[in-house]
């Protein structure tokens, strides 16, 4: 199936190439003219006629009018070389290679010609910079810390990272991926810190991508993932330049994609998905507490409803005597078995979330309130669901949103359903079997060839300093073993720890 698909893609690509590849510049112009936003006109001067061609939706008109046209009209140029000298813009190319010209035309260059029959022409960059301004992060919002988030422009994003890491070792490698989209992709790493093997893995995997269009960095995540059938994200996506910079200096590798406001960070571990960058802005006791709360909330979110179903369906013995009355009372009017009740409520919550996410913010909020309060109360009063379960499901949904990485939150909400199913089949035993499946799966998953469950397994005590607990910075003098960095020391521990004697 997969092979067939690839073959089909390759063949179609080849025929397309044969048909569409222009051989001369005039061919190219002819082909481009079929599109309505292609503009071509000539300026007649005594020294000759200059042909100007560009795609008007890609270029910045200001540049054309202010920096190019005046110099063409008023001065006397005889050839392209003269022209190149007289236009006050850097990065003007003189080219006669048609494929290059085509590519430049499509990326916002203006073509200047004297003679329509010769392929040689002048290429002037006038790409319109219609980016949005750098704004505050919305998905990984933090109360403290920098309020900058990546935007859709790769250059600006690189600028945001470089500004934070002013070092010669920060290396950017660029490549274009996507047979149709030709998206520019940058791989960032700090030379001398990041592991060579990791770098090679990333670059090799990105080069090997066979896909027609890369619209966002999340395409890359899926395409280069070690296990593409895993519901767990294997690269962290972040919109925070500070988080990316920190990861880079730790020895990780970041991938930035043109047109995507999300950077990818790898290799990563499961635990890292539950650490918010804000943890580093708080002192370590507070940060550790929050991380522990987050871990518990994740466990609660996954296990609460399945355990409810398991206990009420099979293990009534487990219910403490004082709780018995409450549970039986809340269930006494419900016509459905616990599993159906739970699935209905879980789906209702998913519906609310989905509806809230798809609608504009203001309407979305209303939907949330209407759904939460009205539907919830009504279904309890109508005797369709028990109020105890309503509390559990609502808390579980809330808990799933505490994960700082959005993609992980989705995964957590998803893996709850197999657990529900197993709970219905074999109660607590089923939950345990499902947990074993999950555990084995997590053991099998790798992120860029590095174990996903590290530092839990393989157990590396040293790496535990920044997982569920976050020890103070003074204890974090070494880079994680998992990254196999070339330079393992972050700073000199002795120097940082030097203590003065009392009253000295």
């Amino acid at each position, binding site marked *: *199936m997969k092979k067939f698909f690839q073959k089909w893609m390759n063949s179609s690509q080849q025929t397309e190439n044969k048909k569409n590849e222009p051989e001369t510049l005039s061919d190219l112009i002819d082909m481009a003219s079929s599109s309505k936003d292609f503009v071509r006109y000539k300026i007649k001067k005594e020294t000759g006629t200059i042909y100007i061609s560009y795609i008007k939706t890609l270029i910045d008109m200001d540049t054309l009018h202010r920096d190019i046209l005046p110099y063409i009209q008023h001065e006397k140029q005889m050839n392209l070389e003269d022209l190149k000298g007289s236009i006050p813009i850097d990065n003007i190319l003189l080219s006669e290679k048609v494929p290059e010209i085509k590519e430049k035309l499509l990326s916002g260059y203006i073509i200047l010609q004297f003679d329509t029959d010769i392929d040689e022409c002048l290429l002037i960059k006038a790409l319109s910079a219609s980016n949005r301004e750098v704004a505050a992060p919305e998905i990984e919002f933090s109360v403290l810390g920098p309020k900058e988030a990546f935007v859709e422009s790769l250059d600006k994003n690189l600028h945001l990272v470089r500004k934070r890491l002013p070092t010669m070792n920060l290396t950017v490698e660029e490549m274009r991926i996507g047979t149709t989209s030709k998206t520019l992709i940058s791989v960032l790493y700090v030379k001398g810190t990041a592991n060579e093997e990791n770098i090679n893995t990333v670059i090799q995997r990105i080069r090997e991508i066979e896909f027609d269009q890369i619209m966002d960095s999340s395409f890359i995540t899926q395409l280069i993932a070690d296990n593409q059938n895993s519901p767990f994200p294997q690269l962290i996506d972040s919109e925070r330049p500070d988080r990316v910079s920190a990861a880079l200096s730790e020895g990780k590798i970041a991938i930035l994609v043109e047109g995507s406001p999300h950077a990818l960070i790898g290799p990563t571990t499961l635990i890292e998905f539950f650490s918010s960058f804000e943890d580093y802005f708080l002192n370590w006791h507070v940060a550790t507490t929050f991380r522990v709360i987050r871990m518990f909330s994740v466990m609660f979110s996954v296990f609460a409803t399945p355990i409810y179903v398991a206990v009420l369906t099979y293990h009534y013995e487990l219910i403490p005597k004082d709780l*018995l*009355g409450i549970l039986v009372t809340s269930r006494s009017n419900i016509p459905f078995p616990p599993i159906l009740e739970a699935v209905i409520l879980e789906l209702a919550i998913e519906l609310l979330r989905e509806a809230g996410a798809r609608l504009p913010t203001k309407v979305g909020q209303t939907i949330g309130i209407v759904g939460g309060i009205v539907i919830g109360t009504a279904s309890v009063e109508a005797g369709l669901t028990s109020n105890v379960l309503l509390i559990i499901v609502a808390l579980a949904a809330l808990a799933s949103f505490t994960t700082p990485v959005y993609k992980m939150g989705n995964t957590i909400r998803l893996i709850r359903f197999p657990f529900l*199913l197993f709970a219905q089949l074999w109660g607590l035993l089923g939950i345990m079997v499902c947990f074993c499946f999950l555990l084995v799966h997590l053991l099998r998953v790798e992120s860029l060839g590095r174990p996903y469950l590290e530092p839990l397994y393989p157990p590396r005590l040293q790496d535990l300093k920044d997982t569920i607990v976050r020890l103070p910075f003074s204890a974090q003098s070494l880079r994680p073993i998992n990254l196999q960095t070339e330079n393992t020391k972050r700073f000199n521990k002795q120097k940082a720890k030097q203590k003065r004697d009392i009253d000295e």
Partner: protein
Amino acid sequence: MMIRIISLILACILLMAGCTTKQEILDDINLITLIGYDHTDDRKSQGTVAVPQYKPDGTVQNEYYSAIGEIGQDIGQQLALQTQRPLVNGKLEIVLFGIEFAEKGVIETNDIFRRDPSVSANMKLAVYDGNVHDFIVNHRIPNQDLGMALTKLIEQNSKQETFPRTNIHLFFRTYFTKGKDPFLPLLGMKDGKVYLKGVSLFKEGKMVSALPASDLTMFTLLHSGFDSGSFVLPVKELNAEVSLGHIDAEPKVEMRGNVNSPQITYTIKLKGLINEYSGDIKGIEKKVKLIEKSVNSVLEKRAESLINSLQQQGLDPLGIGKRANAHYRDWDVKEWNEQYPELDIKVKFQTNITESGVIR
């Protein structure tokens, strides 16, 4: 492809799995919290169960079912004929035996519960002085589950240290121990209220006698000691009564001599404070020594008479024999049982009143 085939198989299994393991959905079962057994005539007995019904408005009503049969299973089947939903044992709180039933022996009945894995090890057993069926059917407690109410009554007394800790596990542990006889709480009715009437003593699984309520505290003290118990005692020398509280006491059985003629001394170091004193408060600090001495002699007398009466009946719920078994390497249960009633068991109290001034 492989994955697809596997998932297809799994999907089929899931459809099949709809009819797997027997479910016991909480609201589709009747949770028995109390079972009572009465002796009727010849070999039959009557079983009565109480099932709490939790109403949607939050109130609780007790429902009763009763059947007469030969063994537990038989009664269970007859009970099932009367109920809308299956009766389950998993939340059984307490099993009550009518006093006549207890005198015929409770082991066979209890064994059913010991073997049933769904029954808690912390389930209580108790003897009721009277007919259990009448008690269960007639006793009305508003908005409370009867089984749980009785369990709480017993647990409360264990916490107050007026009765040793008890449950089905401890009952069987004692039953299977050489040199110790099991005992159970004895419940009774007074003025329409159920109360802890005393201790029912068992020999070989049959109830043979009972201790009155007045012996409860002393029995508990001798059996398992106090963490924070209390006593009210007369002080004859001062013509007053003293109430001791926060008593910390650990009974120690010391054995001397050889197996054939052991000399047994019960030593109890008692540490407590005076809660109340009915006599002249002034100068109580000086009377402490006197009170201690008086308390010692009163307690010693009480303890000795309790132990003597147990000895005369050939009962050993305090586990003196078990203690001897732990002490002597060549202890033999038969020889012990023969010499037990004639043993000279001394009791020594060493009271230490740590505070006297605090009056609450």
